Structures are given as C-alpha cells and as structure tokens.
C-alpha cells in the first residue's frame, strides 16, 4: 500500500471507464467551435478585427476558466460516483486509513485534469491556428505567450479537478457534486465580488488573468496561492469528511 500503488489504483479507475474519453470529446467540440468562430465569425461591423492582434488571438484562445470548470466536473463525477457505485468500499478496505486513499484519488484526478486541460488548450490553439489560414490574419501569438497560456490552462485543469473531487468526496452524490461545482464556479465568484470589496481580484478568472500575464492586479505568487486555495479548501474538507463519516 505504498502511495504510488494507491495512485496507480486510482489512475486505473479513471482509465477503465469512459469518463475521461467523454470529457476529451467535449474538448474536441470546444476546439472545433473556436476554430469555427475564427473561420466564419465576424464582429458587429462585419470585419474580423477580433483576431487582428496577438492580444485578441490570445484572449480568444484563453481556455483556463473553461478548463477549470470542465475538470471540476470531471473530478466531481470521478469522486462522487465511487460512493454511488460503492466502489469506495473495496478501496477503503484495502486502505483503511481513508485519507491516504483520498489523497491518492486527488493526485490522480489532478494529473488527469492537468492532462485534459493541456490537451484541450492544445486543441484550441491548433484549431485557431488552422482556422486562421482561411482568413487574412496570421498566427500572431508568441511562443512565450503560448507557453504561458498552456501552463496556465494546465494548472487550471489540475486545480479544477482537485476542487471538483473535493466536493465529490464531501457530497458523495454525482448530481449534488455537479450542482455544487456549478454553484462554486458560477454563482459564488460574482456574488462574492459584488458583496465584498476587492473580492473580485481573488475569483478564478481574475487569478488566471494574472497567472497568464494578462493582468497585474496581484503578484504572481499571490495569484498562485489564491488559485491553490480554490482547490485546497474543498480537498481539505473532503479529507476531513472521509475520516469522520461512516463509509456506508
């Protein structure tokens, strides 16, 4: 029962159902939509000014928040279904120190979330790059900016997956966990930003803007800590809950 063995078991769980493939299919669709917007979309004046500059193109390709939302749903489903199907029972029989099993699960979904987000971002970039050939504009985003974009989205994928899995462990019901993810990422941030002064700086979209270099509202390290908190708070709640509650 080494930590590596537990992570391997969790990766096995994720690779032996179609969940990850389903999310990958969604990413392909999103990339296709982005490419279609570039190829066929126009702004209000009928021009393609929205892809005229490197900043415009980078903004169009920015996928971090979408990745966080998508992988949060992935993590929530991956964790909560364990309880729905009672497959958590053999897991906790093998690893009765339950926090170790949950840590392994969080590690596995973080890895999967990061990979899914990276693939999604790469597909979006590739789709936009290909679609730009059908326009009079070239691909203007620099390698440095592109690398930053990919890194930010990969981080967003890992953060989202851990956030979702933490909620899934706490709620233990797929429908409830998915609802919680939507509430946490869509309802809580704007509500908090409206209610508390300066809170808008700490919502995921603002933090990803800082991490990707599009904003300087806070220092990079502060943004990294802030986004980590979005994942670690629900993960911590999940670790506490799993030790305190009966499994079945």
């Amino acid at each position, binding site marked *: 029962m080494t930590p590596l063995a537990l992570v391997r078991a969790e990766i096995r769980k994720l690779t032996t159902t179609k969940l990850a493939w389903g999310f990958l299919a969604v990413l392909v669709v999103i990339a296709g939509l982005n490419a279609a917007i570039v190829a066929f979309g126009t702004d209000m004046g009928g021009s393609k000014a929205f892809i005229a500059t490197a900043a415009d193109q980078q903004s169009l390709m920015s996928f971090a928040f979408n990745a966080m939302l998508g992988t949060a749903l992935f993590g929530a489903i991956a964790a909560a279904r364990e309880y729905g199907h009672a*497959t958590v029972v053999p897991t906790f029989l093998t690893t009765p120190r339950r926090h170790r099993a949950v840590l392994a699960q969080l590690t596995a979904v973080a890895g999967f979330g990061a990979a899914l987000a990276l693939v999604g971002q790469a597909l979006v970039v590739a789709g936009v790059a290909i679609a730009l050939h059908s326009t009079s504009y070239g691909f203007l985003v620099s390698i440095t900016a592109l690398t930053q974009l990919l890194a930010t989205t990969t981080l967003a994928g890992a953060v989202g997956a851990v956030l979702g899995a933490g909620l899934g462990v706490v709620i233990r019901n797929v429908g409830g966990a998915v609802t919680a993810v939507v509430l946490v990422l869509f309802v809580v941030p704007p509500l908090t930003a409206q209610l508390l002064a300066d809170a808008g700086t700490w919502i995921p979209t603002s933090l990803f803007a800082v991490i990707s270099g599009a904003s300087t509202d806070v220092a990079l390290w502060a943004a990294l800590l802030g986004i980590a908190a979005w994942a670690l708070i629900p993960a911590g709640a999940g670790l506490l809950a799993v030790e305190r509650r009966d499994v079945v």
Partner: protein
Amino acid sequence: MLPLTIDHITKHYGKDVVVDDLTFTVEPARVTCFLGPNGAGKSTTMKVLLDLATADHGRCTIGGLRYRDLPDPARTVGVVLEPNAFHPARSGRNHLRTIADGAGIGRPRIEHVLDAVGLTHAADRHVGGYSLGMRQRLGLAAALLGDPPVLVLDEPGNGLDPQGIRWLRDLLRERAASGGTVFVSSHLLAEVEQLADDVVVINHGQLVTTGALASLQRSGTTVRTTAPERLTQILERAGATVHRGRDGELVVRGMPIDEIGDRAHSARIALHELAAQAGSLEELFLDWTSTGDGTAGDGTAGEGTADGGTADEGTASDAPAAEETHTDREAVLL
C-alpha cells in the same frame, strides 16, 4: 490464527439503536454463521468490524488489532459486503485490477481468482451485463485476491446457482480446515445447517445466542400431550420457548427436559411423549427471533452466551403461537 472479537459494540443511526452492546467472538479454524432477521444489525456489525462504520461504544479486533491497524488488510481479511460494489462500465478483470493495484497484488493472482470463481470467460465483459450470480462470484474473487486467512462475507451465496453454492461451501470449509477464520452472514438456513460449525444469532442488534450449532440443535424437547394449550401457557410462564411442530407436537426450548416433566406432572397434565429433539435450524431460528405478535424479533430473548455456552443458557425468547410461527417461517423462506 486470527480470532475476530466483537467487544460490547453499540451503534446508533440517529435515534435508532442498530447494534446494542453486542459481544461475541469468532474463532479461527471454524465456520461461524451470523444469523438474524432483516434489520437485525448483521451488516452494521460487519461494517464496524471492518472500520467502514464507527461504533459509538465498544471495540472490534481481528487477531487483536483494529482493522485500520492491520499491516496488510488486503492480505489479511477478504470481504464480501456490498452486492453491487462495481462500476457497471468496468470489466470484471479491470475491477479486480483496481483493487490489486492498490494492494500491490500481481496480475497472475487476478487470473488465478478469476479461474477459481469460474469467471475467466466473462472477465472482459462489463460488470453491468453480469447476472447477480456472476457479480457475487466477482465479489468473492475480490475477497480472495490477497489469499487472506480471514473471510468476512455478507450473504455470499445470494444469486449463486447450486454448483456455485457447493463450490462456496467447499471453499469455506477448506479455509476453516486450514486454520482460517470464516465469518459468514446468510439467510439460506439449509445452507447454514450444512456449513456452520458455530452460529451467532442477533435480533434488534442484541445477541440472542452463540455457540456450536450441533449443541444448539440438540437443545429442544418434543412433548406430546392432550392439553397442549395449557402446558404451553405453563411452560412459557416459566420462561421456556414453545411452538407447535409439524405434527402438532410441542417443541420446547430453554428448559431442561426433567423440569418440563415435573411441571406437567404438577399441573396434572398427561404426557404421551417427552423426548430430546434434534430441531432443524429453521425452527431454532424462528424460536430465537420471533415475538408474541407474530413478527420477527423483539430483541428480548435470553442472555447471550458469548462464552460459547449451550443453548440452554441463551434461548429463552418470547414464544409465538404455533400459527404465527408458521407464518414467520414462510416469511423467512421467501
């Protein structure tokens, strides 16, 4: 040799007391069957033993250690607990691989247990397409993955065909014969009768009786009389359990045979037969778990015999009327 010890455990769910100060021991090298009506607290007891649920009071150990303190749980205890603890879209082989990966068990062992439970041919099919019997076999395969010396199985025979039941019985007997500890809950009383060395009976979370099945079965007395109703009242008032047998005879438990004769004599009731009886487990089960209102179990049956005492020490439950007993029997069999 790893005994299982249930030591004064109590478990509440909300205001309901599901397990109530339960104490007994499951000895190694024996097959111990865990009996009780639906809702008696058997599964909860097993979950507490396996640290899947936390007792409000008391402590359970396996070879002196709590489950969570076992150095290698998967190689120590094999468990069948939830009948459908599978992801339906995962294949049987992959289900076992997820468990084996976490426990550090190699692929050859997976193939071995699949072969042992007769699932090799269906190992790559999705579990969602398995029959109940196939799922039960997969659960047993998972329990056997670590080749553990202790087996804790909740209704393992459900859904198995006769060949499967026979295979399971042979497996469990073989495990016990080699010094293993086998703790099995079951409603298949005929099967329990063939399988069990010892039984533990609970009702409403309380211990009703425990001991060697053979000695418990010898604890009844058959009585034939011309005044069965009056004698039943007298014996029940004195604490015995009385019900009508198939041929109208009285079957009395919880009272020595000579005392039954003495009480009948004192009441001037003529006896036509007074004989020690080897009762069926089904009859015993109904005696242990039935109540005067015809429903299963009031939990007030006699003192538990956690020390492995005889049935005389622990079978004084409230006796149902004969007709009610038969109704209960049908309900259990269904």
